[in-house]
């Protein structure tokens, strides 16, 4: 099974990196760009058939390691 985990800063936590990308895109002439936020995407291959189990252990991984929930939130996407 393959999973994709997104780890992004919580709303309200300042994201200077996103802001810098936004500014740089403006500088390059992409005037239509509004807010930009940057996060991490972590692709994980899992040896696990059971969808629910996979979901549960991914949640566990996020809580224990992948995200720092003081500042970050996460989303889990399971692909087949």
């Amino acid at each position, binding site marked *: 099974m393959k999973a994709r985990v997104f780890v992004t800063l919580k709303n309200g936590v300042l994201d200077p990196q996103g802001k810098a*990308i936004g*500014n*740089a895109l403006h500088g390059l002439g992409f005037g239509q760009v509004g807010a930009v936020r940057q996060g991490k995407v972590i692709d994980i291959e899992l040896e696990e058939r059971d969808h629910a189990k996979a979901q549960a252990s991914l949640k566990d991984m996020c809580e224990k390691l992948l995200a720092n929930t003081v500042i970050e939130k996460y989303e889990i996407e399971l692909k087949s």
Partner: protein
Amino acid sequence: MTDITPQTVREHGLSVEEYGRIKQLLNRDPNLVELGVFSVMWSEHCSYKSTRAHLRRLPTKAPWVLQGPGENAGVIDIGDGDVAVFKMESHNHPSFIEPYQGAATGVGGIMRDVFTMGARPVAMMNALRFGAPDHPKTRHLVSGVVSGIGGYGNCMGVPTVGGEVNFHRSYNGNILVNAMCVGLARGDKIFKSAAEGAGNPVVYIGSKTGRDGIHGATMASAEFNEDSEEKRPTVQVGDPFTEKLLLEACLELMATDAIIAIQDMGAAGLTSSSAEMGSKGGSGIELDLDRVPQREENMTAYDMMLSESQERMLAVLKPGREGEAERIFKKWQLDFAVIGRTTDSGRLIVKHKGAVVADMPVHALSEEAPVYNRPFERRTPASGSPPYDRARPVMDSLVRLMASPDIASRRWVWEQYDNTVMADTVQRPGGDAAVVRVHNTDKALAITTDVTPRYCKADPFEGAKQAVAEAWRNLTAVGATPLAVTDNLNFGNPEKPEIMGEIASAVDGIAEACRALDFPVVSGNCSLYNETNGEAILPTPAIGAVGLLKNVNRMATIAFKRENDAILLIGDTKGHLGQSIYLREIEGKEEGAAPPVDLSAERKNGDFVRSLIEAGKVDTVHDLSDGGLIVALAEMALPTRIGAKIALPATGDAIAFLYGEDQARYLVAAADAERILADAKAAGVSAVLLGRTGGDKIAVEGAGEIAIAALARAHEGWFPSYMGGTELSPSN
């Protein structure tokens, strides 16, 4: 197996003659693996085929040189059984394509060259050249290169203590990223790369092998053209964490006596490390590629032999010591595998999946590599002293120069490097030379890198002399005794006689200066083909140099320390404005003769200044270089905001006197002028009293004055405002 067609040969960067020679050496046609191996071993990068004949003219010996060129790094004796190990290396092409990773892996590569010798890296330097500030790519390259150097070096915990940054349009399409590493070891614990003896295990240490940068070495030996960005050759990604583990693990293994030979896998990875170790040890090597730790599936023998995956080492151990070594590498979570053994056959034999996939005489790969006496034409040096506007206000020009790209403060750069980790950095970036204490002692190494490419363009011989002289002077200015040099020869396409002429003259210039100053070359690197669409970079023979302070308590820095100190100028001033920063920035002229270098004056003046520092008579010294006397004076005033008031000597033009770039000169500040003037007279050194420190201005009688605050704004402002708003670092 794929047939070797003329096109395959060409794609491997080999000429028809070279291919013929390979067939002759093998007594048959090579297969593709063998062709690949030859192509990297015979590339410019690995074989130095264009420069080798010239490099022989460099002086490389002195009683304190324990290892000159020919090993991974040079080694010099610094007393008490301690040695300094150092080398400089370029990562120019990869850094242009992927500035962060290119620069990062450049740092990683040069560190491996130093710790593979058994030394712990203690200081890093970097000499960087970028295109014109207004070129659309420059900011992005500066930002990526600087964060790449920091990203790798900071994680390694080795302080990056200095370097150079220049801008010039000739580097628009070919930036230069030269990194230097200095390490410390005990003289009786130096490791070399000669794989002596037969039947000894060959072990692979470090990261797994992937298909990284295959043909990186051949890429570094070919000129860029417009579509090479499209072809996008693979660039390696560095892993400083693994390198840190590799460093600690290697040093731990080196503390045992299990190692016969060890060599980093740099450009051309497994190929060059095994061939070089075999050739130096006069032995053969048999490798079984099935045992190589692999990161990717279905890797071919060709892939593995040519991979440039980073953070890997090859070692030959004493038989029976494999277990001990393996335990150390497992502790550091690194891959470890016995992948072969040494033989007495003199051949490099490579097996893969049970078959022999390559079988070549080791000497054919290294000693038999082509050496070219390429045709060269020495250029007639530029001459004359261009006219300039003598009525221009002196102090306005000073403010402009202080804010010009080549003189403005590099604080924006060095604050991104951890320059104090290891708690021995005694002089941080910003002075004439970095000073790093030898841990637990009162002695210290002084380190600098220097070259003034505009002088080298005008006159490759005098320019190269100047680079060596300036490096020597910078070490002297902190009070160190200059000991030895590493060089990085960055030039254009050596197949052009005028470029080859630049190289030949530059080598002569380095050789003459090093000989006159007792300053042997102990290691170095060449980077050629730095051209885009037929336009070469300015000739840039970067000089890295190391000196020794026997007593770090007797050291000088550039900052004025007290009010009312006498300011003295050591050395003669003729007012040489040809090729000066002043002419370029203020008059818009890159013209005239490069400043001539009188090596005996350098030596005499430098020895005198050093003797003052060693005797404790002087603690404030700055050598004169870009921008001449007045820029040096401003740089001495800025750190402590103590001003100065000087008078011009009676003769000559103020602009030439203040901005001329005559060589062999220093400014010193000390309470007692009379004593120094008397000492100078006794030593036959010319010295004049210019004025005194104090106040919050730089004032030159008859030429005006300027507030230090205004100079500081100009000097500190340029870099941050130039880089402002582009703070996107490409990684993480």
